[in-house]
């Protein structure tokens, strides 16, 4: 049905519902003169004008109580959607530790032990921090907890720089932690905003070192690793 035709049908319907009995019939006769389809449409609408029906109330009031409660329960129980993997990023490599990983003497460093920490359902282990040293959120710190940390202004970001409007909302930059190599890397995000590392524009994977300066928008962040030369989760 076209919008124009519907407007025509509705206009006749609105006038017809104000009339009863013979007055309605006589109005329809006059309004639909020469347009039998219009009359059929309007009469079928009038027949369905029960003043109620399914839409009298709201689904929230009228749906069976059990169904509504179950729908809300299931919705609340839904897991949070996982972030979409980005093809251009190198995923953290899951492999046995390579030779040369610096670690405290006596520690058995394995990828499996790191993974098990995340899989226990408790809080993810701290891997490092970002400390805001310039910008609206100066003085604030952000925790790096997972293998892939999206940085942006939206609250759903892993690291949310909420006070700086010049930071892109969704994935301005990404910091990854590779447990097999015990290293952090910085990537540009999918947003338009540019990210700088120690004053240089980041256009690919850049390895992070302690106290590196990461700049995005008006915000400057110092990288403080917890995992590194002196510590790694076992």
């Amino acid at each position, binding site marked *: 049905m076209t919008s124009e035709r519907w407007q025509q049908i509705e206009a006749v319907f609105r006038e017809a519902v104000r009339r009863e009995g013979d007055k309605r019939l006589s109005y329809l006769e006059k309004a639909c003169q020469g347009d039998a389809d219009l009359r059929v449409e309007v009469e079928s609408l009038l027949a369905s004008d029960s003043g109620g029906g399914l839409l009298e109330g709201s689904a*929230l009031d009228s749906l069976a109580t059990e169904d509504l409660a179950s729908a809300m329960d299931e919705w609340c129980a839904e897991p949070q959607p996982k972030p979409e993997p980005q093809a251009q990023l190198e995923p953290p490599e899951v492999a046995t530790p390579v030779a040369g990983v610096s670690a405290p003497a006596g520690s058995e460093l394995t990828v499996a032990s790191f993974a098990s920490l995340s899989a226990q359902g408790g809080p993810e282990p701290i891997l490092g921090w970002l400390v805001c040293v310039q910008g609206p959120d100066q003085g604030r710190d952000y925790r790096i907890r997972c293998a892939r940390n999206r940085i942006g202004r939206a609250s759903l970001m892993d690291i949310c720089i909420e006070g700086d409007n010049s930071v892109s909302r969704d994935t301005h930059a990404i910091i990854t932690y590779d447990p097999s190599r015990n290293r952090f890397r910085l990537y540009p995000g999918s947003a338009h905003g540019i990210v700088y590392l120690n004053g240089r524009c980041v256009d690919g994977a850049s390895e992070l070192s302690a106290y590196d300066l990461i700049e995005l928008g008006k915000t400057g962040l110092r990288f403080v690793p917890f995992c590194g030369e002196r510590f790694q989760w076992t």
Partner: protein
Amino acid sequence: MEPLSAESRQVTEVLREMRDRPELFNERLFPILYQVMKKMARKQLNNEREARTLQPTVLVHEAYMRLVGSDQEWQNRAHFLSCASNVMRQILIDYARRRISAKRGSGAVRVPLGDDQAVPTALSLDAILAVNEALDRLKEFDPLKEELVKLKFFGGLTVAEVAKVKGISLTTAKDHLRAAQAWMNRELSGAAPR
């Protein structure tokens, strides 16, 4: 009432940014509202001894009060509540689809209303899906009516609230809803002329 400062700023910002491009409201606001409302619902469920006390209508209104506040202009209120109604619609439709699919496989449904078009005592999941499909068809030629029905049916707003958020008089809202209901009743009962 505990404020949701970060989310509130985010929602207010989207409302401000999108003021001149209303067609983008749902696209931008929906994912935020979907997650924020779920967070509120989870908190509410955790705080209640009896989980069945979660009231979706209260959730929609409380989300508005906590995220936007009562001092916003009515356009923002309209956009927010429209988007919150979409969230509720999505929740119910997803649930109905899952349940029906699990019971007998998915497929189109037709809802018999009975000869006297009586108001059912409780809506079935089939009816929810049928209303959803009919609303999609209504939107093709009368998006305003689709919006009004959505706010009332899925958002749980009263007719007076629907009129207020859409900036139309109560009489006009009633006229639109009466025509929309007649059309929807006809569609749902399979009585539309061929």
